[in-house]
C-alpha cells in the first residue's frame, strides 16, 4: 500500500508539473484529491489495515496530500500571475499621448497687477476701497486743492459730461471721498485701484487707463513721514517690479501733496546703464507721491495741526507692461483672444 501511495504521489506531481493551464490543473486536483480521487480511494482502503500500520499509512497519506496540495497551489499561483501579467500587458498604453484637458480661462494682466497690489497692502493693514468712475469736479479736483482755473488741471485734460460731472482723471478722487466719509476722523490706511480717463489717445496714452492710489492718515504724534513713505514704496516697488530695483525720489509738484515727489526706479531692462526703455537715463518714472497737503486735509474734515500722512499713486497699465514684458499699451485694451489666453496660469511668487 505504501508503494501505491508513493506511486500516486509521483504521478500526481508529474501531472501537475505537466499542466499548461488552470483548467487542466483543476482536473488534476479532482483526479487525485477529489471525493472520488485516487488518494481519497486509498484512504478508504485504510480500514483493512492493522492497528500498527494505520497511523503510519495515515501520516504518509497526509504527507503526500500536503505535498500534492502544495504543488497544486504553487502551480495555480504561477498561472494566476501569468494571467495577470498578460492582462497588464494588454492594458498598457502610450503615456506620452496628451491628457484630456479642461480649458482654463484667463485673468486680465491689469487685474492681476491690481490683485497683487491689493494683497500686498492688505497684508500691511490697508483697507481696499472703491469710488465712482463718474465723478464730480468737486471730488476729482476741488477737494484735492485744484480749484477751477488751476494751471495743473491742464495736466489732466478731462472728459466732462456736464460742467460738474466728469470721468475721473485720477483715483485720487477717492482720497477725498474716504476722508470725508470717515466721520470719526480716525486714522486711514487705504488702497484703491481702478479705471481712470483722460482726454488723450496715442501710442503711449490710452484714454482709459488704470491707476492705484494709497493714502495713510494718522495723528500727528505718530509722525507718518516722508521716510515712512519711502520705506512703504520701497516694499511696493520691490514686490511689483523686482528685488534689485533702486528707487529715486525726485522732488516734483502735485497740488494735493506738499512736499511732492516722482519716484523713479532703476531701469530693470538695462540695470541703469541706459537703454531705449529708460530713454538713456537709467531711470523709469513709476510713481507720484508726497505728504498730504494741509489744504486737502482741511477741505476733507481733518485738522492739519492734528493729522498728517502720505499719499501715492501709480499707473497700472505700465506696471502690467513691465511685469509681463508687454511691448505696447494698446494690447491691454484690444483683448485679442491669443493675447488673453497667455495669462492663464498662476503668477510666480
Amino acid at each position, binding site marked *: 500500500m505504501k508503494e501505491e501511495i508513493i506511486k500516486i504521489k509521483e504521478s500526481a506531481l508529474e501531472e501537475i508539473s505537466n499542466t499548461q493551464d488552470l483548467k487542466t490543473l483543476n482536473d488534476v486536483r479532482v483526479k487525485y484529491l477529489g471525493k472520488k480521487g485516487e488518494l481519497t480511494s486509498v484512504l478508504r482502503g485504510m480500514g483493512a489495515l492493522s492497528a500498527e500500520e494505520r497511523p503510519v499509512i495515515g501520516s504518509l497519506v497526509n504527507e503526500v496530500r500536503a505535498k500534492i496540495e502544495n504543488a497544486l497551489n504553487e502551480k495555480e499561483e504561477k498561472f494566476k500571475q501569468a494571467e495577470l501579467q498578460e492582462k497588464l500587458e494588454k492594458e498598457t498604453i502610450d503615456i506620452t499621448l496628451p491628457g484630456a484637458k479642461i*480649458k*482654463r*480661462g484667463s*485673468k486680465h494682466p491689469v487685474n492681476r497687477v491690481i490683485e497683487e497690489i491689493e494683497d500686498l497692502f492688505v497684508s500691511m493693514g490697508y483697507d481696499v476701497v472703491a469710488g465712482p468712475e*463718474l465723478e464730480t469736479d468737486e471730488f476729482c479736483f476741488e477737494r484735492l486743492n485744484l480749484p477751477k482755473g488751476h494751471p495743473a488741471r491742464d495736466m489732466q485734460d478731462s472728459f466732462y459730461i456736464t460742467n460738474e460731472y466728469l470721468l475721473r482723471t485720477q483715483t485720487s478722487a477717492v482720497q477725498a471721498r474716504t476722508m470725508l466719509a470717515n466721520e470719526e476722523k480716525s486714522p486711514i490706511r487705504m488702497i484703491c485701484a481702478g479705471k481712470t480717463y483722460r482726454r488723450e489717445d496715442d501710442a503711449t496714452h490710452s484714454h482709459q487707463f488704470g491707476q492705484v492710489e494709497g493714502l495713510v492718515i494718522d495723528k500727528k504724534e505718530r*509722525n507718518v513721514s516722508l521716510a*515712512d513713505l519711502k520705506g512703504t514704496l520701497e516694499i511696493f516697488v520691490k514686490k511689483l517690479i523686482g528685488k534689485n530695483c533702486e528707487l529715486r525720489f525726485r522732488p516734483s509738484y502735485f497740488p494735493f501733496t*506738499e512736499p511732492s515727489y516722482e519716484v523713479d526706479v532703476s531701469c530693470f531692462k538695462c540695470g541703469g546703464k541706459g537703454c531705449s526703455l529708460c530713454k538713456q537715463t537709467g531711470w523709469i518714472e513709476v510713481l507720484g507721491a508726497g505728504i498730504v497737503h494741509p489744504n486737502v486735509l482741511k477741505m476733507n474734515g481733518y485738522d492739519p495741526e492734528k493729522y498728517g500722512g502720505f499719499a501715492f499713486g501709480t499707473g497700472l497699465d505700465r506696471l502690467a507692461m513691465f511685469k509681463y514684458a508687454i511691448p505696447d499699451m494698446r494690447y491691454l485694451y484690444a483683448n485679442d*483672444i491669443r493675447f488673453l489666453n497667455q495669462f492663464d496660469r498662476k503668477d510666480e511668487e
Partner: protein
Amino acid sequence: MKLSINFVKDYVDIDVDIKTLAEDMTRVGNEYDSAGKLINATKLVIGEIIECVEHPDSDHLHLCKVNTGTEVLNIVCGAPNARTGLKVIVAQDGAELPELTIKKGMIRGQESNGMLCSLAELGLEQKFLRPEDKEGIAELGEDAVIGEDPIKYLGMDDGVIDFELTANRGDLLSILGMAYEIGAIYDKSVKEIDLSHKENGEDINNSFSVEVKTENCKMFLAKKAENVIIKESPEFIKNRLIASGIRPINNVVDISNYVMLELGQPLHFYDADRLGNKIVVRMAERNEKLTTLDEIERELTDTDIVIADSTHGVGLAGVMGGLETEVEETTKNVLIEAAIFDSVKVRLTSKKILRSEASNRFEKGLDPKRTYMAIERACTLLEKYADATIVTGTVIYDGTNKQDKQIDVTFQNINDVLGTVIPNEEILNVFRKLGFTYTVNGETVTVTVPTRRLDISIKEDLIEEVSRIYGVDNIEGKLPVVPMRKGSYDKTQREIRNKMIALGLNETLSYILINDKEINGYTLDEIEPLKLLDPITEDRNTLRYSMIPSLYKIYEYNRAREQKDVSIFEIGKGFYKKGDVYGEDTKLCALMSGKYSLGLNNIKNVDFYTIKGIVEEVLDYLGYAGRYSFIKEEMPKEMHPGQSAYINVNGTNIGIIGKLHPSVSNEDVYVFEINLDELLEKKVGKMKYKEISKFPSIKKDIAFVVDKNIISKDIERTIKSAGGSLLTEIEVFDVYTGSNVADDKKSIAYSLTFIDNKKTLTDEEVNALMDKVMDNVCKKFNAEIRK
C-alpha cells in the same frame, strides 16, 4: 524750457559738465528731456578756399583747394557760393555731423577729402535758417582764423538742457531763476544784472498815460525808447535766442525776447508813432474785433483782456499784439510794455489763439519785482544794441504786493514731516543756499522768501525746499509705526471672476466709451445718454449703460482676426442718469461664441444652454440656488426673441441672457449681463450642514412626449407637486426631437430621485408616486409617456 549754458553762466559760475548739471537739477526736481551741445558735430575746422575751379564732369560742382592751416585739402563742393578767398567751415575726414559722417572718397572721378558745410548741415533747426543758409555754404568773416574751431568762432559753442518743469515753478522760466536754482545746488552766489542806462528829455508821464479798467491787469509799466535803429542783433543775442528755441528777427524784437528769457517777464513793444498817447487796459466787449499781428481778424469775448488806445483795441494782453502797432523795419520810436495779467484769463485767451512762450509765463505767474527789472533791462539793451535814446521816467500802474513772504517753521516740524534728524545748522544752510534770509528764535525759524518764489507760501513748501536741497537720497526709508490691525476688502467680485475663469472664460478689459447710437441697445430701460462734452472721436462719445456693446466690439475685433472661438467676460461699470441723479452700476457681462470646451474632450458649439449653464453655475456658487428663474417677457430688439430671457432672482429681473438677434450678428453669439449691485443686495443663507439620509434613495427615469411649445419649467412644477416631499431631485437628462416623435412634439426625459429620511422606501410607495406624476403630467399637458 531750453536752458542755454552760456546764457546762464552770465549769472552763476558752473564748474560741472552739462550732463552732471542736468542730473543734479533732476535730483532737485527739475527733470530734463535732453542735454547736449547746440551744434553736435566733430572734426570741424576753419579753412580758406585758395583755389576754386569747375569740376570737369559736372555743371554745378566745384573743385576746391582748401587751406586748413595744417594741410591743403582737395574738396569737391556743390555750393554756388564756393569761391576763392572765402573762409569756410571744413568737415574733415571722419567728421560726425548730425545727419552724416564724412569720409574721403571720389566724386565723379575727383578726389574729395572732406566737406564744406552750410549751417543747415550742422544741425541747426530749419526755422533758424536764413535763405542764404539754405542755399549755400556758410560764409565766415575775414576775421576767422584758419585752423581754429568754427563753432567757437560763430559763438555757437553752447550747451542746451531741455527741462520739463513742473507747473508750480514759473520762476524757472528765466535764466535768472535758473541761476538761483543752480546756485542753491552748488552753493554759488548769483551775479548782479546790468540795468544801467541814460534817460533823456521830458518825463514820459507828461505825454503818455495808462488807464487800467479791469482787475485782471495787476500791473502795467510803460517806458519809451526813441530813435531806435533796426538791424540784425549781435551774434551772442541771436545765438542765445536760437539755443533757447526762439527765432531771431531784428535787434528790437530780439531784445524783447531776450529780456523775457533772461528775467521771465514777457514784454511787448509797440510802434509808439502808431499808438496814441494813452493806453487803456480793459476786458473786451462782446463781438469786439481785433486783427492780431498774424494778420487774422479775431472775434473777442468778455474773458479776453484787451490793450486799447483811446478808440480801439491794439493788442490781446499776454497773448498777441495787434497788427496795427507792430514794430516794423521802419519803426523809429518804441513804447515798452511790462505788465502782469491774470493768469486764468491769459490761459483762456491763449488756449483759443496761441500758446506762446509769453502766455506760458503769464499763466505760471510773475514776480512784480522782475517786472520793474525787466523794463529797465530792456532799456539798457535797446540803448546798447539799438542805439536808442531812453525817455525819462516810467508810467506806472501797480496793484501788486511786493512784500516778501515771511513763514514760520520749527526744526521739529521739518524733521517730523521728513522723518529725519537733520541738524539745525544744515537746515539753515539750505535756506542760505536758496538765497532766503531767516531769523532763528529758539526752535522757530522765520524764513523770508523772495517774491520770485511764487510757489512758496506755507511751511510745507519750506519743508519741501529742505528735502530738495538736503537731498531725498539722504533720507533713509522706514515703515510707519502704527497700531496693528488687519486690512479688509470685499472679496466677492474676485470670487466671481475666479469662478468665471474656472469655467473657461477669458477676462477682458474693455473701453466704457461707446457711440451714442448704441446706448439704447440691449435694454428696454429709458436711458438719457451721458454724452461727453468734448469727445476725441464720435465712435466713443457716450458712457455705456449696458456692457454688451463693449464686449461685442471685442468679439468683432477677434472675429476680424479669424478668432471665432470667443468666450469672454468682464466686471465693469454701466452708467446712468435717473432724474437728477447720476450713478453707475457694477455689472457682470459675458459673451460666448464658437467652440467651448465643457471639459475633457467634450468640445461643443456654444448654444443658449451653454451660457445659461454658466449663469446658473455662478448663481449657485453665490448661494442663490433655487431662488432664480429665467423669464420670457418682451425682449430688447437686439436679442433673439425665441432664445433670450430675463434672469430673475427673488422676483426681480437682475439681468438678461440670450442669443443676439440676427440683425446684430450673423454668427451665433450669446451674451448675458447681470447687475451685480442689484444681485448682491439679495441676501443668501448661511452655508450649513444638512443631515445625510441613512436610507437608500430610489431613482426613476421617465420621458414625456409633449407639444413643442410646452416649457420644461411648467412640467417640472407639476412633477414636483405630484411627487410630494419624498421627491427630492428632478433633473432633465435628455431632450429629443426627430424620428419616432411627431414633428410638432418633443420628448423630455426626467430623472427623479425619491428619498425618505425616516425609513427605507419600498418600490410600491415609489411606484404609487410615479403613477401620480405620470397621471398629472399627462392630463395637464396632454402628454404621452415615451416608452
